[in-house]
């Protein structure tokens, strides 16, 4: 054992102290380190470990849509400080993000772009939908231009209701998401979402034929059948 090599003058030296050696700063001596004692090893399943890591360090996407984004910023900012929960300062590029918070009303013109942003995020990715608009269209549900919920476009893991939800509610939603990730749970997709598809692949009907002059065959389009919205 290493305790043999300690100078004989110092008695009652713990194994841990001996390992640390002399001159080491005790700030490295965390409670966790103390708890482990002389055997600093954990046995766990790799999947479980990865899930725990994923949930504990989430990169959010900097993504603002409407009113809720103001409360989302307030959640990131000093008073509520989402960073305390390991879900920190937002990243501007979807390529670097794990979690997308959808904060606001999604309208027909924006849904294809949001889908594109979501597609650009690397797997595994998670979605928190914030506010009533992303659940059902909220106060704007009757609008001619409003997509009735984020789930019509992308799969959603956690819904945070409210108009807008308070920052505390969003923190709770994110914490719940972390819990689910740590437990390896995933959400079933409950709605068949609107897809981006090539214009040429759409079923030929009156509308498609009418637009045939304006849209190229290989343009990506999203078709809204408002009547079939859930």
């Amino acid at each position: 054992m290493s305790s043999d090599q300690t100078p004989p003058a110092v008695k009652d030296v713990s194994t841990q102290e001996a390992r640390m050696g002399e001159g080491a700063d005790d700030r490295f001596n965390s409670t966790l380190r103390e708890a482990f004692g002389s055997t600093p090893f954990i046995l766990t399943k790799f999947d479980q470990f990865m899930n725990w890591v994923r949930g504990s360090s989430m990169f959010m996407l900097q993504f603002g849509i409407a009113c809720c984004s103001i409360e989302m910023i307030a959640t990131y900012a000093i008073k509520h400080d989402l960073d305390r929960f390991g879900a920190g300062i937002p990243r501007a590029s979807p390529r670097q993000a794990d979690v997308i918070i959808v904060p606001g009303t999604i309208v027909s013109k924006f849904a294809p772009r949001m889908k594109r942003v979501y597609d650009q995020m690397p797997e595994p990715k998670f979605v928190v939908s914030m506010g009533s608009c992303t659940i059902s269209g909220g106060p704007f549900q009757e609008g001619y231009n409003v997509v009735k919920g984020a789930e019509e476009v992308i799969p959603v893991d956690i819904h945070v209701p409210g108009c807008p939800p308070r920052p505390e509610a969003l923190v709770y939603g994110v914490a719940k998401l972390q819990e689910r990730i740590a437990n390896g749970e995933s959400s079933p997709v409950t709605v068949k979402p609107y897809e981006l598809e090539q214009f040429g692949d759409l079923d030929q009907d009156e509308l498609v034929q009418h637009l045939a002059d304006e849209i190229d065959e290989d343009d990506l389009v999203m078709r809204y059948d408002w009547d079939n919205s859930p």
Partner: protein
Amino acid sequence: MSLEKPSTPTEIGVTEDGLDYDALAELLGGHVLDRESHVNAEGFVVRPDEVQDVLSTLKTEAGFDHCACVTAQEYDDRYESIYHLRKFDDPTQELSIVVPSPKDDPHNQSGARVYDTADWHEREAYDLIGIDYDDHPDLRRILLPETWQGHPLSQDYNQSQPQIVTLRENANPLQGDRRSEDDPDTMFVNIGPHHPATHGVLHVQTVLDGEQIADIEPDIGYLHRCEEQMCQDGTYRHQIMPYPDRWDYVSAGILNEWAYARAAEDLADIEVPEYAQVIRTMSAELCRIAAHMLALGTFALDVFGDFTAIFQYAFRDREVVQNILEDLTGQRLMFNYLRLGGVAWDLPEPREEFFEKTRDFLDDLPYKLEEYHDLITGNEIFQMRCVDTGVLSAEKAKSYGATGPVARGSGVDYDLRRDDPYGYYDELDWNVVTETGCDNFSRVLVRMREVEESARIIEQCVDLLEQWPEDDREIQANVPRTLRPDPDKEIYRAVEAAKGELGIYIRSDGTDKPARFKIRSPCFSNLQTLPEMSQGEYIPDMIASLGSLDIVLGEVDR
């Protein structure tokens, strides 16, 4: 007193007690077919093919230099466009130009050659109502996608028909999408709709020549959530009031609510008790401070990319305002506090605590502002970025209908709180802030100085409320449960919101819901000036200009 303006040379139709519409009608002569009487002004009915003549006569000879809004609507027997004209020197002098056009082929002459601002307003009218404007520079859809079918606010629109929306507007700059054929060095770059610097979901299409902007076009409509339709579907008394909070959602809720309250109260002849007016004035100015704080923080974020210091400081201080507003209204963001005829409830008990909290905030404010001046306006890098960039001349600002801090940063002395008084503003002592730099720096400075003025107003309101006799605290007028204004009553009324002139046009048809509800959003007009400011500038300066405009996409797109 500071609230007085220098007198202007008299123009046609100006008399001591308001506008003399007969003189104006005489000026226009045979152009005027008929005269209507709206609540705010008289309306002159003119022929659809004489719009340009009429507007330019009124602009050059009668001094109507502000085309506040263009409202379009469909009646059972005709389409109609209304140009709401007023004067920057005295916005109480108003005139509506009413242009009917036939039902089967609705078109009339465009006003965009006279007022630059009419460009976007007419595009919106074309998009939502379906009126064609002849001689318009670029008549395309503006809020809805280009492949949209039908005009949603027209009478025969079928809301459940399927729609197809393309993704092609976001062209790839690497695929040789060089726009200008005569200059192959230019490159096309998309900024947004998902971009950290666009303050939401704005899409800016730019053509770059090197690092300079050769051409720029804001593409809006990514947050067009049918606010006008929602308001037309709601009853006056209660169902409309929650929506204004969601137009300009940067905690400017009460300012927006006031816009609706003012229009509807004037439409239905409701007198608001004085006590309620003081509370309104105080809470509206608290909202203005919160909104300007956020504008300041995000502007620093745009210019420095500083997420840590200034942005967080601004949010820290905004949080204090939000706490006060939460005590007052029960909500952090969507206050829904005003009611037609007053406010929802009185100040929270114990009142002393509320006053103390508000006073504490006001006492701290000067130090905080000093800190901001140290960090922002006193910063050399900031000055280099902002002084003399994004220049908007007063002339252009007026022509584009810019209002609020954007206009006041260009030296246009226009503030509806003073010029078209409402609430309790004309009883209080405060100043309208203007700067003459016309650049990004001036616009930021105007906002920072306006925070000081708002604090002055709040202070006086708190004093008033504290001394208000207890048995005279009337918070709401007696308003009928169901409001049914007389049929065909029309009104355009505006208030000074955080971003500028927020106007509401309402036409009633005798039912308890408005037949037409049109929102004149200050951000919509202000954003139009972006190409003017950034043509030929570097792309980072364009980002700074965009930040200094302080747009909220919820209000631009409605």
